[in-house]
Protein backbone atom coordinates (compact mmCIF):
# COMPACT_ATOMS: atom_id res chain seq x y z
CA UNK A 1 0.00 0.00 0.00
CA UNK A 2 2.80 2.36 0.91
CA UNK A 3 4.44 1.22 -2.29
CA UNK A 4 1.54 2.55 -4.37
CA UNK A 5 1.09 5.71 -2.32
CA UNK A 6 4.60 6.92 -3.13
CA UNK A 7 4.75 6.15 -6.85
CA UNK A 8 4.88 9.20 -9.11
CA UNK A 9 1.46 9.01 -10.76
CA UNK A 10 -0.26 6.21 -8.74
CA UNK A 11 -0.40 4.31 -12.02
CA UNK A 12 2.30 1.93 -13.19
CA UNK A 13 1.45 2.48 -16.84
CA UNK A 14 1.52 6.28 -16.51
CA UNK A 15 4.83 6.07 -14.63
CA UNK A 16 6.18 3.88 -17.40
CA UNK A 17 5.13 6.42 -20.04
CA UNK A 18 6.35 9.47 -18.10
CA UNK A 19 9.69 7.72 -17.56
CA UNK A 20 10.14 7.40 -21.32
CA UNK A 21 8.85 10.82 -22.37
CA UNK A 22 11.02 12.53 -19.74
CA UNK A 23 13.97 10.40 -20.88
CA UNK A 24 13.62 11.72 -24.44
CA UNK A 25 13.52 15.34 -23.19
CA UNK A 26 16.55 14.79 -20.94
CA UNK A 27 18.48 13.02 -23.71
CA UNK A 28 17.79 15.91 -26.10
CA UNK A 29 18.82 18.47 -23.46
CA UNK A 30 22.04 16.64 -22.66
CA UNK A 31 22.98 16.44 -26.35
CA UNK A 32 22.11 20.14 -26.71
CA UNK A 33 24.39 21.16 -23.83
CA UNK A 34 27.23 18.85 -24.91
CA UNK A 35 26.74 20.04 -28.50
CA UNK A 36 27.10 23.68 -27.43
CA UNK A 37 30.46 22.80 -25.83
CA UNK A 38 31.58 21.10 -29.04
CA UNK A 39 30.46 24.00 -31.27
CA UNK A 40 31.87 26.69 -28.93
CA UNK A 41 34.84 25.08 -27.18
CA UNK A 42 36.16 28.37 -25.80
CA UNK A 43 33.01 30.04 -24.54
CA UNK A 44 33.52 33.16 -22.46
CA UNK A 45 31.19 34.27 -19.69
CA UNK A 46 29.07 36.51 -21.93
CA UNK A 47 28.41 33.69 -24.45
CA UNK A 48 27.67 31.22 -21.64
CA UNK A 49 25.26 33.62 -19.94
CA UNK A 50 23.56 34.49 -23.25
CA UNK A 51 23.06 30.80 -24.02
CA UNK A 52 21.00 30.26 -20.86
CA UNK A 53 19.30 33.67 -21.05
CA UNK A 54 17.57 33.00 -24.39
CA UNK A 55 13.83 32.39 -23.93
CA UNK A 56 13.94 29.20 -26.00
CA UNK A 57 16.75 27.86 -23.79
CA UNK A 58 14.97 28.90 -20.58
CA UNK A 59 11.90 26.92 -21.69
CA UNK A 60 14.06 23.92 -22.69
CA UNK A 61 15.98 24.11 -19.39
CA UNK A 62 12.86 24.31 -17.23
CA UNK A 63 11.17 21.58 -19.25
CA UNK A 64 14.23 19.39 -18.69
CA UNK A 65 14.25 20.27 -15.00
CA UNK A 66 10.62 19.11 -14.73
CA UNK A 67 11.50 15.99 -16.74
CA UNK A 68 14.45 15.35 -14.41
CA UNK A 69 12.24 15.57 -11.34
CA UNK A 70 9.64 13.16 -12.73
CA UNK A 71 12.31 10.83 -14.14
CA UNK A 72 14.26 10.76 -10.87
CA UNK A 73 11.12 10.21 -8.82
CA UNK A 74 10.09 7.20 -10.90
CA UNK A 75 13.63 5.81 -11.12
CA UNK A 76 14.43 6.17 -7.44
CA UNK A 77 11.02 4.74 -6.54
CA UNK A 78 11.69 1.73 -8.76
CA UNK A 79 15.11 1.13 -7.23
CA UNK A 80 13.78 1.59 -3.69
CA UNK A 81 10.81 -0.72 -4.09
CA UNK A 82 13.07 -3.35 -5.67
CA UNK A 83 15.89 -3.39 -3.12
CA UNK A 84 14.48 -2.00 0.13
CA UNK A 85 12.00 -4.80 0.78
CA UNK A 86 11.12 -7.18 3.59
CA UNK A 87 13.39 -9.69 1.90
CA UNK A 88 16.41 -7.56 2.81
CA UNK A 89 15.15 -5.77 5.91
CA UNK A 90 12.38 -7.90 7.40
CA UNK A 91 9.59 -6.15 9.23
CA UNK A 92 11.33 -2.76 9.25
CA UNK A 93 11.41 -2.60 5.45
CA UNK A 94 8.36 -0.37 5.06
CA UNK A 95 9.76 2.22 7.47
CA UNK A 96 13.17 2.17 5.81
CA UNK A 97 11.65 2.47 2.34
CA UNK A 98 9.35 5.28 3.42
CA UNK A 99 12.28 7.22 4.92
CA UNK A 100 14.29 6.64 1.74
CA UNK A 101 11.40 7.82 -0.41
CA UNK A 102 10.86 10.89 1.75
CA UNK A 103 14.54 11.85 1.35
CA UNK A 104 14.34 11.33 -2.42
CA UNK A 105 11.21 13.43 -2.76
CA UNK A 106 12.70 16.15 -0.56
CA UNK A 107 15.85 16.27 -2.69
CA UNK A 108 13.74 16.38 -5.87
CA UNK A 109 11.80 19.33 -4.43
CA UNK A 110 15.08 21.11 -3.60
CA UNK A 111 16.36 20.50 -7.15
CA UNK A 112 13.11 21.84 -8.59
CA UNK A 113 13.12 25.07 -6.58
CA UNK A 114 16.88 25.56 -6.90
CA UNK A 115 16.73 24.85 -10.65
CA UNK A 116 13.88 27.32 -11.24
CA UNK A 117 15.96 29.89 -9.38
CA UNK A 118 18.99 29.21 -11.63
CA UNK A 119 17.19 29.01 -14.97
CA UNK A 120 14.65 31.77 -14.40
CA UNK A 121 16.29 33.95 -11.79
CA UNK A 122 19.71 34.61 -13.31
Amino acid sequence: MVTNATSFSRSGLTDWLVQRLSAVVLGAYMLCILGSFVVHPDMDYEQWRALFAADSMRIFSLLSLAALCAHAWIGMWTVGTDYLTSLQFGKGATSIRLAYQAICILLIAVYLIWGIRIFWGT
Partner: protein
Amino acid sequence: MLVPYPEAHDSNIGKRIVKDTRPVNLDLTSVKFPLPAITSILHRISGVAIFFGVAVLLYLLQLSLASEAGFEQVQEYFTNPLVKLVVWLLLCGLLYHLIAGVKHLIMDFGIGETKAGAKTGAIVTIALSVVAFAVAGVWIW
Protein backbone atom coordinates in the same frame (compact mmCIF):
# COMPACT_ATOMS: atom_id res chain seq x y z
CA MET B 1 19.45 -18.47 0.07
CA LEU B 2 16.13 -20.08 -0.67
CA VAL B 3 13.16 -18.21 0.64
CA PRO B 4 9.68 -19.72 0.84
CA TYR B 5 7.46 -17.64 -1.40
CA PRO B 6 4.37 -16.57 0.63
CA GLU B 7 6.20 -15.16 3.66
CA ALA B 8 8.84 -13.43 1.63
CA HIS B 9 6.78 -11.15 -0.52
CA ASP B 10 5.39 -7.70 0.16
CA SER B 11 2.70 -8.39 -2.41
CA ASN B 12 1.16 -10.84 0.04
CA ILE B 13 0.63 -8.25 2.74
CA GLY B 14 -3.08 -7.85 3.31
CA LYS B 15 -5.80 -10.34 2.68
CA ARG B 16 -4.58 -11.93 -0.51
CA ILE B 17 -2.98 -15.29 0.09
CA VAL B 18 -1.05 -16.87 -2.71
CA LYS B 19 -1.10 -20.62 -2.42
CA ASP B 20 2.19 -21.08 -4.10
CA THR B 21 4.91 -22.90 -2.28
CA ARG B 22 7.49 -22.82 -5.03
CA PRO B 23 10.81 -21.62 -3.64
CA VAL B 24 12.08 -18.38 -5.08
CA ASN B 25 15.72 -17.37 -5.04
CA LEU B 26 16.19 -13.63 -4.85
CA ASP B 27 19.63 -13.67 -3.30
CA LEU B 28 21.37 -11.61 -5.98
CA THR B 29 24.84 -12.51 -4.68
CA SER B 30 24.28 -16.16 -5.63
CA VAL B 31 23.03 -15.41 -9.15
CA LYS B 32 25.34 -15.45 -12.15
CA PHE B 33 24.73 -12.23 -14.09
CA PRO B 34 24.64 -12.47 -17.89
CA LEU B 35 25.84 -9.39 -19.83
CA PRO B 36 22.35 -7.82 -20.32
CA ALA B 37 21.82 -8.06 -16.55
CA ILE B 38 25.11 -6.24 -15.93
CA THR B 39 24.18 -3.43 -18.33
CA SER B 40 20.79 -3.22 -16.61
CA ILE B 41 22.22 -2.93 -13.10
CA LEU B 42 24.80 -0.38 -14.34
CA HIS B 43 21.89 1.62 -15.78
CA ARG B 44 20.36 1.70 -12.29
CA ILE B 45 23.63 2.47 -10.50
CA SER B 46 24.40 5.29 -12.94
CA GLY B 47 20.87 6.63 -12.45
CA VAL B 48 21.23 6.77 -8.66
CA ALA B 49 24.69 8.37 -9.01
CA ILE B 50 23.34 11.02 -11.40
CA PHE B 51 20.50 11.78 -9.00
CA PHE B 52 23.01 12.91 -6.36
CA GLY B 53 25.45 14.29 -8.93
CA VAL B 54 22.82 16.75 -10.14
CA ALA B 55 23.53 18.75 -6.97
CA VAL B 56 27.15 19.21 -8.14
CA LEU B 57 26.04 20.18 -11.64
CA LEU B 58 23.46 22.67 -10.39
CA TYR B 59 26.04 24.21 -8.06
CA LEU B 60 28.59 24.61 -10.87
CA LEU B 61 25.92 25.96 -13.24
CA GLN B 62 24.64 28.48 -10.72
CA LEU B 63 28.14 29.71 -9.90
CA SER B 64 29.15 29.94 -13.57
CA LEU B 65 26.04 31.95 -14.50
CA ALA B 66 26.01 34.22 -11.45
CA SER B 67 28.82 36.55 -12.50
CA GLU B 68 32.03 36.81 -14.47
CA ALA B 69 33.94 36.14 -11.24
CA GLY B 70 31.84 33.01 -10.63
CA PHE B 71 32.52 31.85 -14.19
CA GLU B 72 36.26 32.24 -13.62
CA GLN B 73 35.90 30.47 -10.26
CA VAL B 74 34.40 27.44 -12.04
CA GLN B 75 37.21 27.52 -14.62
CA GLU B 76 39.62 27.59 -11.68
CA TYR B 77 37.87 24.53 -10.15
CA PHE B 78 38.42 22.65 -13.39
CA THR B 79 42.19 22.94 -13.04
CA ASN B 80 41.91 20.73 -9.92
CA PRO B 81 42.50 17.03 -10.82
CA LEU B 82 39.96 15.88 -8.22
CA VAL B 83 37.25 18.09 -9.73
CA LYS B 84 38.18 16.80 -13.18
CA LEU B 85 37.83 13.23 -11.94
CA VAL B 86 34.43 13.86 -10.30
CA VAL B 87 33.11 15.66 -13.39
CA TRP B 88 34.47 12.93 -15.66
CA LEU B 89 32.83 10.20 -13.55
CA LEU B 90 29.56 12.12 -13.58
CA LEU B 91 29.82 12.59 -17.32
CA CYS B 92 30.50 8.85 -17.72
CA GLY B 93 27.39 8.12 -15.64
CA LEU B 94 25.31 10.47 -17.79
CA LEU B 95 26.68 9.09 -21.06
CA TYR B 96 26.16 5.50 -19.97
CA HIS B 97 22.64 6.24 -18.74
CA LEU B 98 21.85 7.93 -22.06
CA ILE B 99 23.24 5.09 -24.20
CA ALA B 100 21.62 2.33 -22.10
CA GLY B 101 18.40 4.40 -22.09
CA VAL B 102 18.36 4.62 -25.89
CA LYS B 103 18.83 0.83 -26.00
CA HIS B 104 15.89 0.55 -23.61
CA LEU B 105 13.69 2.69 -25.88
CA ILE B 106 14.70 0.63 -28.93
CA MET B 107 13.74 -2.54 -27.04
CA ASP B 108 10.41 -0.91 -26.10
CA PHE B 109 9.65 -0.95 -29.82
CA GLY B 110 10.14 -4.71 -29.76
CA ILE B 111 13.58 -4.67 -31.37
CA GLY B 112 16.22 -6.99 -29.94
CA GLU B 113 14.00 -8.67 -27.37
CA THR B 114 15.29 -12.18 -28.05
CA LYS B 115 18.04 -13.69 -25.91
CA ALA B 116 20.58 -13.19 -28.71
CA GLY B 117 19.27 -9.68 -29.40
CA ALA B 118 19.59 -8.70 -25.74
CA LYS B 119 23.20 -9.87 -25.75
CA THR B 120 23.97 -7.92 -28.92
CA GLY B 121 22.31 -4.83 -27.42
CA ALA B 122 24.35 -5.18 -24.25
CA ILE B 123 27.62 -5.54 -26.20
CA VAL B 124 26.80 -2.47 -28.33
CA THR B 125 25.85 -0.49 -25.19
CA ILE B 126 29.16 -1.31 -23.49
CA ALA B 127 31.23 -0.73 -26.63
CA LEU B 128 29.66 2.68 -27.33
CA SER B 129 29.97 3.63 -23.66
CA VAL B 130 33.69 2.79 -23.51
CA VAL B 131 34.27 4.96 -26.59
CA ALA B 132 32.17 7.77 -25.06
CA PHE B 133 34.08 7.53 -21.74
CA ALA B 134 37.38 7.80 -23.62
CA VAL B 135 36.22 10.81 -25.63
CA ALA B 136 34.93 12.48 -22.46
CA GLY B 137 38.26 11.77 -20.73
CA VAL B 138 40.28 13.26 -23.59
CA TRP B 139 37.99 16.29 -23.59
CA ILE B 140 38.36 16.93 -19.84
CA TRP B 141 42.12 16.32 -19.59
